[in-house]
């Protein structure tokens, strides 16, 4: 009995972690900054590749993963300054820029680094409950997802940078007039988003095939989670991930992965139809 219950929880945790980790970076870049970042998957790929390089260079895995996140973040900050900055007033053009960027990055990686990379191998270690075997690493991913949610919340709610960032996103002119250094805030916020995307890649690198287009597997889930969450990502991402993870886990278990996938998409349609402002809009309305 307990084993079965835990098995359900494990499945849910697995899908939840995937949704949260893949959406976290996008929640900041798309949810807060309004940039339709089609290159989100490429930041994830960048994190995974950097992690793998660092690991093969001899770093222990957790350090290598930190490297992955940092590298993606730094690249994000540079790209923001060079490519993204002129487009805050034209968010739809950012879609083209980032799409172009994603083409250049995936193909560039293919040409420079080859069509695939030797993997890392998932850290071994598992545990048994009843007749089921579980991978410890998947539980670490779940914990990481919770930490990321907490980190985003604290960063943007409790720190000075976070308050400045939210003020800038709401009214850049006003924030600047009050002494906030707008460009720096934009760059750092974008960097945080890119680093979170890189972290997602870093965490999933040991469990996946490393190819230049690997980011594509994350992109639909990440956009869907962020949008269902609604305009206020600090409030919306977690309940959105919970709702979608429950739907998907149930359908996966009952009807297999195909209907899990289709069901997830139809659930998105249904949720938006019922809550046209997403979860955060609904929660805000209930609170007021």
């Amino acid at each position, binding site marked *: 009995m307990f084993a079965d219950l835990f098995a359900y929880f494990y499945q849910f945790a697995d899908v939840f972690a995937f949704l949260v980790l893949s959406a976290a970076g996008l929640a900041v870049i798309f949810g807060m900054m309004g940039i339709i970042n089609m290159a989100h998957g490429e930041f994830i790929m960048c994190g995974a590749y950097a992690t793998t390089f660092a690991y093969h260079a001899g770093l222990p895995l957790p350090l290598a993963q930190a490297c992955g996140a940092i590298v993606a973040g730094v690249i994000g900050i540079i790209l923001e300054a060079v490519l993204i900055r002129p487009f805050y007033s034209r968010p739809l053009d950012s879609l083209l820029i980032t799409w172009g960027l994603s083409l250049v990055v995936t193909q560039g990686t293919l040409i420079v680094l080859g069509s695939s990379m030797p993997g890392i191998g998932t850290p071994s270690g598992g545990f048994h409950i009843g007749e089921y075997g579980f991978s410890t690493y998947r539980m670490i991913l779940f914990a990481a997802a919770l930490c990321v949610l907490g980190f985003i919340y604290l960063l943007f709610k409790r720190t000075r940078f976070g308050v400045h960032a939210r003020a800038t996103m709401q009214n850049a002119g006003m924030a600047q007039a009050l002494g906030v250094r707008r460009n720096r805030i934009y760059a750092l916020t974008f960097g945080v988003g890119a680093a979170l995307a890189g972290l997602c890649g870093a965490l999933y690198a040991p469990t996946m095939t490393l190819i230049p287009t690997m980011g594509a597997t994350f992109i639909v889930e990440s956009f869907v989670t962020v949008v*269902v969450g609604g305009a206020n990502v600090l409030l919306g991402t977690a309940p959105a991930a919970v709702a979608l993870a429950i739907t998907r886990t149930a359908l996966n278990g009952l009807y297999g992965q195909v209907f899990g996938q289709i069901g997830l998409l139809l659930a998105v349609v249904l949720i938006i139809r019922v809550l046209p402002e997403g979860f955060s809009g609904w929660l805000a309305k209930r609170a007021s």
Partner: protein
Amino acid sequence: MLHLLNGPQTMGNGRAFWACACLVLLAALIYPVFADPYDVGNFAYFLIWVFMALGLCLMWGYGGMLSFGQTFFFGIGGYAYGVLSVDLGSAYGMALGNFALAVLLAGVAAAILGYLMIYGRIGGVFFGIVTLAVTLALAYFLGQTAGPEWAIGKARLNGFNGMQGMSPLSLPWFGGDIDLEETPLYYFVLVLLVGTYLALRMLVNARFGNVLVALREDPQRTELLGYDVRRFQFGAFVIGSMLAAVSGVLYTAWGQFITPASIGLPAAAMPIVWVAFSGRSDLTAVLVGTFVLLAAFQTLTIYSEQAALILMGVILIVTVMFVPHGCFVGLGRIAAWLPRRGRTVRRPSAEVG
């Protein structure tokens, strides 16, 4: 009626523009006389996709609704044409009947989806994500129809490998139908495209288009002026989606083949790229821009091997950085500004959030 061809919602209203347009059309009409049949067929193939882009231009550029669902209707049109063609045959002008039926079917689907979204007050990014979700769901669904149980009449959907066995479009003619391939197909698509383009110009310059642009700029204010905004959005969505289905039918008939890959990502993002690149706020820009971009991407892919995708990305980035509002809207404005003669119409800003 014809005076609506010119108006505030379209670029190129002067005599110079129409003279140029006539020249281009003339050149297009006599092109097959000089060209290799392959090039004519390839030319027709590019034109096939333009309908879908024009549809998106109407709903996104004019109506402010960013739809990721063009390939959804493209797929419905294409698969419907395939099924009808296999089951009903295509003799005695039936091919054109199947064409019309398939587009109509997509129109019904668009009406249902549009009603659910627009009358449910779904807007902004939510509109994009709902259309994307429906599109991907259709692609996944069709991808798993490999088994023989997935057949409509004699027509097997055949999963990821794609549906086959449909006939090309054909015109009924004395002494046997004419298959529309290569040059005949080219003329057919060209005529259809010119008709669609002119009809859309009249539509956007009529009251419908003016209200559409007004609600793109400020839905609340338009509503307060007494218009039922939703009716106009709904109309634009259905028309735009049916145009995507026209592309779908033409594509399927052209290659006698369609797969779910034409529906899912990255195919679903392509119309948005074409329209955004060309300049979403004008029909002419989208018409020319989509064609040029398609031809350019194909050419790059042929001549530059692995570098092709990189060059495409760079072209997009550079264009967006240096030519705001889209490449061909930008060019159009320069062209309108240069002579400083004729009517210069002050256009409303095309910024839509």
